[in-house]
């Protein structure tokens, strides 16, 4: 399947909404917690069991992004978005069948396995295309799409809760909710499939198309060569450390703010803690578009210096003074979460700077394995240490002191890894003839 080449005078401003239609849909994954209580009561599941579909979906996200990246580059964004649409929507339909027939394994298979493939392919599907359309502002372009992944849960969470309220929280109500979600997301993502186009290469570009993107220029490295470079692994460490530090707060945000101010004159109520979590989601989303766009102005290496360096200072401030000032605690947590989102959104542009646009989507997919590890590492550190501190008789803010020191250490490791990033050695660059032949082959058929 050849990628859909933009006709003359196609506007590049049609590509971000195409990307958003996919990312806003697959971002639903972070709203899975809405289904946990009704699933547990209607199918008689434990908390661990009800988390299984989500956990498998995230594992499949990492695996399909890592192993499907080359296919996405070869077949183009329309193919990738179609695969994402089919997998993500049919995952919900299979889950609806599972809920209706009370077969939990079908929900795990549908949402976790099939839907998870849709998550991974959908996540990387627009990245390479956006960077090619916006060579002048790659950070902003990928920031818009990846902000959508953060925004997906904001839509899905209240919407799903409302549907469960209307249809009922029993297995039939859950099945109906899954069915509506599956069908709605299929329609919503269709916009992306229909709108997405790859830019015409220079030479075949119509002069009227002033918003067109230029052909590939500068350093170009294939995905297979990229993973053999120290730059790739330095960035892998940078992303892993930055995400681990963010998840460290995100995972336990509600109990953390409650514990921090439990012994003060202004304790935090359950509803206020929920408000804090919502505010963190907003910071996460704003960071994706805000910091990523800023990286176009100050450079990718500098913005990661901010994420990792200032992030470490924020953690230190929370550890030292957090329990004495609620505004300071909230401000520092918001900044850390904005850096967490910014780290995700800026990394495709960083990869483009280092490896070019040739197979940047595939390289991005492989880098996302750092997310999989961080997703385990962050919660593990904070939860394990907090539990042990509690067993040791500690309470309040002191439950988290050790975790914060570890997070500072991880951010320093990430900072050093970022400092070690240098331009890629010329022996990894692909020959210009091969690059030109590949682009020619990809654009040999009309859209």
């Amino acid at each position, binding site marked *: 399947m050849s990628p859909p080449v933009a006709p003359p005078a196609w506007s590049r401003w049609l590509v971000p909404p195409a990307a958003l*239609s996919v990312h806003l849909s697959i971002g639903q994954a972070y709203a899975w917690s809405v289904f946990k209580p009704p699933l547990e009561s209607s199918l008689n599941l434990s908390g661990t069991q009800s988390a299984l579909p989500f956990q498998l979906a995230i594992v499949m996200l990492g695996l399909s992004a890592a192993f499907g990246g080359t296919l996405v580059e070869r077949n183009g964004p329309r193919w990738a978005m179609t695969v994402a649409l089919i997998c993500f929507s049919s995952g919900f339909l299979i889950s609806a069948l599972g809920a209706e027939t009370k077969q939990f394994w079908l929900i795990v298979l549908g949402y976790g396995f099939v839907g998870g493939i849709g998550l991974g392919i959908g996540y990387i599907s627009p990245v390479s295309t956006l960077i090619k359309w916006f060579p002048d502002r790659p950070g902003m372009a990928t920031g818009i799409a990846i902000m959508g992944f953060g*925004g997906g849960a*904001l*839509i899905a969470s*209240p919407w799903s809760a409302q549907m469960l309220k209307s249809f009922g929280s029993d297995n039939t109500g859950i099945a109906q909710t899954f069915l509506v979600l599956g069908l709605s997301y299929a329609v919503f993502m269709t916009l992306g499939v229909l709108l997405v186009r790859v830019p015409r290469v220079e030479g075949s570009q119509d002069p009227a198309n002033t918003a067109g993107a230029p052909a590939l220029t500068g350093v170009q490295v294939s995905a297979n060569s990229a993973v053999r470079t120290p730059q790739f692994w330095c960035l892998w460490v940078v992303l892993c450390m930055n995400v681990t530090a963010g998840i460290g707060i995100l995972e336990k945000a509600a109990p953390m703010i409650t514990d921090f101010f439990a012994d003060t004159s202004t304790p935090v109520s359950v509803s206020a803690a929920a408000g804090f979590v919502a505010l963190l989601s907003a910071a996460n989303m704003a960071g994706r578009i805000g910091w990523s766009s800023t990286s176009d102005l100050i450079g990718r290496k500098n913005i990661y210096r901010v994420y990792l360096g200032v992030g470490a200072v924020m953690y230190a401030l929370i550890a030292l003074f957090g329990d004495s000032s609620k505004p300071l605690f*909230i401000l520092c947590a918001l900044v850390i979460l904005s850096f967490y989102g910014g780290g995700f959104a800026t990394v495709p542009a960083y990869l483009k700077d280092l490896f070019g646009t040739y197979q940047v989507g595939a390289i991005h997919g492989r880098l996302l394995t750092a997310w999989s590890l961080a997703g385990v590492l962050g919660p593990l550190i904070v939860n394990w240490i907090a539990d042990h501190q509690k067993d040791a008789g500690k309470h309040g803010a002191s439950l988290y002191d050790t975790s914060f020191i570890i997070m500072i250490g991880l951010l320093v490791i990430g900072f050093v890894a970022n400092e070690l990033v240098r331009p890629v050695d010329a022996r990894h660059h692909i020959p210009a003839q091969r690059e030109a032949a590949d682009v020619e082959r990809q654009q040999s058929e009309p859209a």
Partner: protein
Amino acid sequence: MSNDSSQSPPDRRPLIAFAWLWVGAPLVYGLYELILKAKQLFTG
């Protein structure tokens, strides 16, 4: 009779507006719900 090169390119602005509205409307709904929840931090 005019050839292809003399034709003006199609106006994409309505399509751009529709596409951004398509993704913007649900996002605004999500942000509205988020603000309602976040307010609880200061009122709850």
